[in-house]
């Protein structure tokens, strides 16, 4: 419990174990979308792999730039999700960043594919590719989308589909679904997500001990290890470390004078240079839509299916614009933020919130912002020079 927070180690062990599971005939692997029903899969005895995490790794290592064109040439448009094209291209090319990082030859072969369209429909196309390619069963949770409020009717629709998933896992594993294991898994997820929320809240301190760029690394376990003790224990340690930093006055950005909110996806291949740019300008990015998206406060082990349905419906990306406007304005106030950066990702309109006049409406509420054009993985859509000019010019106005 008190081990040093070592996210790299946690992620390494997770991936090495998955690799073993994939080669062990007795263990089963499921692939799941990042805000999909991972806790059900764990309770059903699956090890869970998240292709989006693989996409982010492809982006961060810039291997995407070799793999996206392969998917493009095969008929996956350059305009669709570049996680999808990075990952599918890597599959087609037979490469993975896991080899260089961990000595893992290939992504862990799945026994089941499960997606949730609460984030977008690209995940459906993405998982369908693998269902065809690997002839593996696929299950989609088709969520009601872009909700102003999440109602009981919306939840009912998802609960019914989650029950369908449970039935499918029973059929595939030949075992009765373990309700108790599910409660346990959701309880662990709840503990981890509450801790993750506290980790992110440390950035309210001035100076902040945490920046968005650190948080994109620290978020690994809450994405891929929900429902496990490992994730919970990691965040206990991470939180303690950050609190110690606050007590010591240690800043993520030395000499912090400005504080920003980052909306939209990270530019994975440019985390370092963007982080450096902000550091040079004594600016800390202290909150983000992206990292906050793994806060699932509604989880409750007493009513696991319904609260799981609720939490996965309530995510930011699945809400209407009025909600998003309120959410960003509130966060800006709570974290003492000077301005918002909207990353307009060319290949992910789902996670680009500047396109329907939100910046102007926030401005009317006194929230200043700037839009940077770019992408999560496709650096063909990103100009370092233009991004630097836009960001620095924005900082000059604050």
């Amino acid at each position, binding site marked *: 419990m008190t081990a040093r927070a070592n996210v790299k180690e946690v992620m390494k062990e997770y991936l090495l174990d998955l690799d073993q599971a994939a080669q062990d005939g007795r263990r089963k692997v499921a692939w799941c979308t990042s805000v999909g029903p991972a806790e059900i899969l764990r309770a059903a005895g699956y090890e869970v792999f998240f292709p989006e995490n693989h996409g982010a790794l492809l982006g961060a290592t810039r291997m995407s730039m070799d793999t996206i064109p392969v998917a493009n040439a095969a008929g996956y448009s350059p305009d669709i999700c570049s996680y999808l094209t990075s990952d599918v291209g890597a599959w087609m090319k037979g490469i993975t960043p896991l080899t260089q990082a961990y000595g893992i030859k290939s992504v862990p072969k799945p026994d089941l594919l499960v997606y949730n369209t609460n984030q977008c429909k690209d995940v459906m196309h993405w998982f369908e590719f693998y269902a065809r390619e690997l002839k593996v069963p696929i299950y989609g949770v088709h969520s009601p989308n872009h909700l102003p409020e999440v109602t009981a009717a919306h939840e009912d629709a998802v609960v019914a589909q989650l029950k369908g998933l449970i039935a499918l896992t029973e059929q595939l594993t030949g075992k009765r679904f373990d309700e108790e294991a599910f409660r346990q898994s959701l309880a662990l997820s709840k503990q981890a997500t509450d801790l993750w929320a506290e980790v992110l809240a440390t950035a309210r301190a001035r100076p902040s001990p945490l920046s968005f760029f650190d948080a994109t690394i620290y978020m690994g376990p809450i994405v891929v290890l929900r429902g496990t003790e490992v994730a919970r224990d990691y965040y206990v340690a991470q939180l303690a470390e950050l609190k110690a930093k606050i007590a010591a006055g240690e800043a993520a950005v*030395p*000499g912090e*004078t400005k504080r920003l909110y980052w909306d939209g996806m990270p530019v994975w291949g440019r985390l370092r240079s963007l982080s450096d740019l902000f550091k040079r300008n*004594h600016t800390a990015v202290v909150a983000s839509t992206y990292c906050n998206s793994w806060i699932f406060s509604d989880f409750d082990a007493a009513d696991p299916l319904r609260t799981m349905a609720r939490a996965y419906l309530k995510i930011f990306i699945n809400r209407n614009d009025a909600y998003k406007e309120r959410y960003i304005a509130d966060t800006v106030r709570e974290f003492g933020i000077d301005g918002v950066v909207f990353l307009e990702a060319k290949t992910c309109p789902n996670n680009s919130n500047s396109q329907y006049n939100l910046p102007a409406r926030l401005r009317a509420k006194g929230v200043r912002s700037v839009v940077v*054009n770019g992408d999560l993985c496709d650096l063909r*859509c990103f*100009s370092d*020079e*233009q991004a*630097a*000019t*836009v960001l*620095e*010019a924005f900082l*000059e*106005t604050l």
Partner: protein
Amino acid sequence: MTTYWGVDCGSTEIKVVACDDAGRVLHRHRRRTLFPLIEHVRGALAGDGDFENPLVDGGARVAEGHFVTATGYGRGHLDFAQDKLTEIRAHYLGVRHQLGAELPPGQDYAIIDIGGQDSKVITVKTGDVDQFIINRKCAAGTGAFIEELAHRLRIELASLPELERRHDAELTLNSYCTVFAAQEVIKVLMEGQRVENLIHALYRSVVKRVLEMTVVTAPSVVFSGGVLTHHEPLRRMFGEKLPGKRFLLAPEAQFCGAIGAALHGLERARKQAAPPVHPSPSQEKHP
């Protein structure tokens, strides 16, 4: 007595100015942007030998009595520069300096700058930059778009304004994309259209691309940058599209950024000379 230098490293031209400590422009020089950039900037600072070179030690550092501030896309690549700022702020400072008398601090205005690779609209409110917008990544709405199509049409850039004045029909170029627009041009030419009408359409499309980036609400508009200086039809068309506004062309429109950079250095020196009323937060933390 210090000489304040501003270097504007644009994508097409390097512009250099030197100002005295009253902010008067003493010297200006421009040349094409070539690479390695730093060598050509050193060359631009040396000028034609008609003014003192601020660099010494083979261009490695700035001599005593000089202060060099960089702006433009290349601003981060000049290791001898003593300060830098973005072209957004530099253009604003340059415009404010040149047109201060016409645009008193209470007066809100917009600056439209069309450069080689980008175009921008800067909104100035209560005497400072309030908002700005830069075109998206493609060349449409920039000088590069005009250059590319002039090249396709095999027409000297300088003769475009004169040809435009002889247009007698309205055509429309729809595309955002320079390549698609070039295809549209070829198609229209094959259909037998007069080149004068095409040039008119080309200018109109540039104006449209700029105006669809933002709503210009300020009562006055200042034109800055080389493209708007050389292509009068663009200024005329902005006038038609934004009726009721007052238009001004910055007197040294091509040097606005460089002048702004020089003045930024001067402002910084003045601030440092004045005793601080309250220490700034950054000074508090970094004594």
